[in-house]
């Protein structure tokens, strides 16, 4: 099987993020980057399919020089090839243009199935996998928690957790699958595989190589724009009510109703 995984490099959840001077970007200074948490499930599922049915796993990421580190991590986990998509014109791409760029790269490759994490933990838009399936004209299953693939029948069955129920859907391959917690337990890269990762192919493609012109991508090609970004207000101190239990309860109910407005 030819398996493709789209991954994103995002700030580590434990990093303290700051908003940049322009008020529209995260300040990358001092930020530690990791492979997006949900993409780990995608990479793991891809490697498992390869181990079962044979074939090749190609990981693709759009982003600047630093995303190579994330791609290497995926190669260390067991992916075979990596492609970095970058061009200064890609800066400030929205989810639509990101998917467009990814789709152009994918169209140059043979593929039977495409995996994405269900969302990136930085922007949380959950939309790239959906756009991607649309642009490639493929069936899709999002937020998948269990997956069965039959490469001969060219079919998949995907299990999804939906509000209060489980949904089971069947579709044709090739398809785009977005991965959710519970799908699998991503492996740690072994140390020898980390050493071998640098011998694996890591290709770079720019706008021209993808047949894109700069008006289609980046901020120009985008359909949504980030106007501003701000940190959530710092959490205010908790209040401790003291005194007669009856009084305290009365006061608590009043505060919940009038101040917190939750009841």
């Amino acid at each position, binding site marked *: 099987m030819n398996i493709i995984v789209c991954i994103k490099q995002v700030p580590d959840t434990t990093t303290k993020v700051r908003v940049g001077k322009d008020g529209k970007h995260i300040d990358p200074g001092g930020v530690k980057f990791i492979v997006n948490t949900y993409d780990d499930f995608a990479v793991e599922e891809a490697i498992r399919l390869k181990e079962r049915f044979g074939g090749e796993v190609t990981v693709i990421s759009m982003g600047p020089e630093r995303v190579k580190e994330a791609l290497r991590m995926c190669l260390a986990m067991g992916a075979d090839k990596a492609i970095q998509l970058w061009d200064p014109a890609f800066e400030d791409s929205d989810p639509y243009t990101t998917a467009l760029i990814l789709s152009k790269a994918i169209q140059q490759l043979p593929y039977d199935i495409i995996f994405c994490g269900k969302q990136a933990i930085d922007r949380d838009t959950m939309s790239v996998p959906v756009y991607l399936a649309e642009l490639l004209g493929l069936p899709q299953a999002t937020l998948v928690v269990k997956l069965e693939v039959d490469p001969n029948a060219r079919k998949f069955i995907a299990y999804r957790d939906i509000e209060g129920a489980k949904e089971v859907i069947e579709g044709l391959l090739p398809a785009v699958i977005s991965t959710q917690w519970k799908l699998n337990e991503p492996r740690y890269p072994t140390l*020898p595989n980390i050493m071998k990762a640098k011998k694996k192919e890591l290709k770079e493609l720019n706008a021209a190589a993808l047949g894109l012109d700069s008006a289609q991508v980046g901020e120009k090609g985008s359909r949504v724009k980030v106007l501003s970004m701000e940190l959530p207000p710092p959490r205010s101190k908790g209040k401790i009510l003291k005194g007669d239990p009856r009084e305290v309860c009365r006061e608590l109910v009043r505060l919940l109703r009038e101040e917190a407005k939750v009841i």
Partner: protein
Amino acid sequence: MDFDLTEDQKLIQQTVREFVQKEVAPYAAYYDEREEFPEEIFRKLALINFFGIIFPEEWGGVGADYVTYALAMEELAAADGSVALSALAHISLCSNHIYLAGNEEQKRKYLVPLIQGELLGAWGLTEPNSGSDAKSLRTTAVLDGSEWVLNGSKMFTTQGTVCDVVVVMAITDKTKGHHGISAFLVERGTPGFSSVKLRNKLGMRGSDTAELIFENCRIPKENLLGQEGQGFIDSLRVLEGGRIGISALAVGIGRAALEESIKYSKQRVQFGRPIADFQAIQWMLADSEVELEAARMLTLRAAYLKDRGLPIKKEASMAKLYSSRACVHAVDRAVQIHGGYGYMGEYPVSRYYRDAKLCEIGEGTSEIHRMVIAHQLLKE
């Protein structure tokens, strides 16, 4: 001059950090309390091939360098000092001795499974009456037909009661001084070989430390490791690499202590302010940071020189001496910053405090390393 790590070094550092923080650190207090060897943890470390870092791929190793080893050891020690000490004895002493001195057959039989974590290794040089003066060891090995017969005892052997194989130094020719000392491979269960776990250590309680006893212990002739009469000389080479490991181990424990100190000093409020606001506390944090960073640099430099095949006798001793002191200082400050809570064992700093002291004793005491350094200076 280049202070940047390579991509491989960074990726391994990051992978080991994530792995040990999740799979090792949460259990450190459990094993420490029970003075139990964490077999389960060792099995997990084998999954990512931790024991193969410094060995070439042809023996199933990772083929990484000593800088990577130092980085990984720092991470492991920051998670659990005892596990790091056990891993160090397994990798740097036992496995590395076999790698440096063993023949093909011995490497296939012992080194490969040691690297895979299928066998657990130990290394015994120290004896009850021979510590710093290691040359004065008394255990003997006499060739009797096709077997060596070992008699004597070994002291403070890490992994002594849990190991599958131990490298033992013994006298094969009394007349030749340290050129009469040879190394042997002894398997667990060999008749005449027994061991006793030494309990109630100050720290490193999750690491198994034992006395080994050899009473007419017969091992096959081919279990001689390296040339006859070369055992002590080989030991010195083995210890040289081990010093980089223990130096990194000290940095790791010290770093964990500093990280806990930073966290706690921001949380603990006295006189209406977090104690981190007090200059007295800030100075302690600053001193630990500076000393640990200097220790890390000495360690990585010794590793860097070793990777280039340059002499590291003085540099490895300097790293070991300085890092162990920096570690002891850092854990001392950490308990001080935690006050009574630090002393009571509720926070990990009390364990760091107990574990740290080993770094100034094991793999050569601080006094011995000063002697080595001075000897190099005066000789030059």
